[in-house]
């Protein structure tokens, strides 16, 4: 009797889970099938139907012909821009975050708690509050619309999360390890590079994953600081889907959306557990 009711409960549970998963997956499915359909088929109102004659035409359009603002040569330039922005932004931000975390967790010079508190509050301030002064400051040194400019801005706004990740990671290590290195005669830099960094591989990966997806998915900073030439993929995508001229081709829109989401989704599905670790480590102890 008890066994029977328990198994009914389990069937209901599994049904609920499957239903929820399908619901969450639905938009991804719609994106994929729409991107493979012709415009005529899209207009027939069969949003959820599989494509009758799957074609990659919309993908080609999105990549090399679609209008993203004034130019009509697709998203490929934006893809390259996003890549150029994401790589240095990630390298610099992760390295600085690891260094900050090391100092704040283990050396703790006077005032470092205050600095860390300020940094954490900074993480909650809407970007718009700080934006105009940063535009002016970067403009004064000629960095607006340049690669170093947008990288600096990304590093600035990712500093709280990167620092927090590594501070918590290093603070959770036994402090005796740090003390042992000091007794062994290792100084500030040797302790970091020879003892701690080799142990930080998991957190380096987590931080890099968080930063690559974060930078890739950014829209606002790219819009304001990258300028036209360097506009990242998200900015181009938004221009593409919200152009008011001409008829909209939802197939191209969805192909472009998928193309823009490709890198973060690949990173996510290839590294799922670490991505989860990144958001929970960043969130729960912050």
């Amino acid at each position: 009797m008890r066994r029977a009711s328990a198994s009914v409960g389990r069937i209901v549970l599994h049904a609920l889970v499957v239903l929820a998963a399908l619901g969450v997956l639905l938009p991804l499915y719609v994106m994929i099938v729409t991107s493979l359909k012709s415009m005529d088929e899209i207009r027939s109102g069969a949003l959820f139907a599989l494509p009758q004659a799957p074609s990659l035409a919309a993908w080609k359009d999105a990549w090399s012909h679609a209008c993203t603002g004034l130019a009509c040569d697709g998203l490929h330039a934006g893809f390259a821009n996003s890549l150029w922005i994401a790589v240095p932004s990630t390298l610099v931000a992760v390295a600085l975050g690891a260094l900050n975390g090391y100092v704040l967790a283990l050396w703790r010079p006077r005032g470092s708690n205050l600095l860390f508190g300020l940094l954490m509050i900074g993480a909650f301030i809407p970007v718009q509050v700080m934006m105009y002064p940063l535009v002016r400051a970067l403009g004064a040194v000629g960095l607006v619309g340049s690669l170093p400019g947008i990288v600096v801005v990304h590093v600035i706004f990712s500093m709280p999360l990167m620092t927090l990740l590594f501070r918590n990671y290093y603070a959770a290590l036994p402090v005796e390890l740090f003390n042992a290195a000091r007794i062994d005669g290792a100084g500030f830099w040797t302790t970091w590079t020879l003892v701690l960094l080799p142990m930080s591989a998991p957190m380096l990966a987590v931080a890099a994953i968080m930063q690559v997806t974060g930078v890739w998915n950014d829209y606002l900073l790219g819009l304001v600081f990258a300028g036209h030439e360097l506009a990242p993929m998200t900015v181009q995508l938004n221009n593409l889907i919200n152009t008011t001229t001409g008829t909209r081709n939802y197939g191209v829109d969805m192909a472009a959306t998928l193309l823009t989401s490709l890198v973060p989704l690949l990173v996510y599905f290839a590294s799922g557990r670490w991505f989860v670790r990144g958001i929970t480590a960043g969130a729960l102890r912050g």
Partner: protein
Amino acid sequence: MRATWAARAALVPVALTALLGYLGSTLWTAQMSVTASRTLPSDHFVGMAQYVRLFSNERWLLSLDNLLLYGVLFISACLLAGSVLAILVDREIAARGWLRQIFLYPYAMSFIATGAVWQWILNPTDGIQAVGRALGFSAFRFDWIVDPDRVLLTIVIATAWQASGFVMAILLAGLSGVDPDLWRAARIDGIPTWRVYTSIVLPQLGYAFATALVLLLTGVVKLYDAVVAMTQGGPGTASEVPTKFIMDHLYGRANLGLASAGAIVLLVTVLALLAPFLYARTRAAASIA
């Protein structure tokens, strides 16, 4: 003696970030909000005049209303969906690793992409409404995205779709900290599963819920990309939000003073929302020490 000069030097970039990047630019914005700055900063002091103008601006007041309504709906939806997903994944079911990954994938996408796909699904001509009508329900209506009274709901749906998995992940992390012996003890005592969740497990997740709440709250205040991608504030001004108001006045309308005043109001809102959590944390830290 403990901290060497190298340690202090290593903190220079982060100190510059916090002091100049965050504090300095915030103060500059605060200063501009009490001036008559238009396209360029001006030193013409006008006191609280920009704030007075701000709060007699229909669009600003509407965007604040929108933010409040959006915030309540979005946070409720995320917490509810996130809890349900977390409990579902927490049960011993097949392929839970895969399920967790499926529930969280929207969070790996950008708001622009999220906005794009939902704009397509919800558009009345070819989206869900068309599907309903093609099925024979000729009176089927689902045109919220062009309905000024319902457009905010569509933004709630899209962003909650994206963020629910995030809430789930945080709650799952909290659940993994619950002593498994509690489950064994409850089974021996014959307590039904739902009761274990409501009386034993969920009360222990206070910290995880608070964390999720803080992050969702700041997400609400920062809401911008999704609105731009989905509705651009429309139809009309029906889905305007404060961040968009500030951006429009910074760029399109070249009214630095008013935009700065709006930014400072937003900042004060964030700090006010954050204050109880910071207070609780310092209290907790003090009671441990």
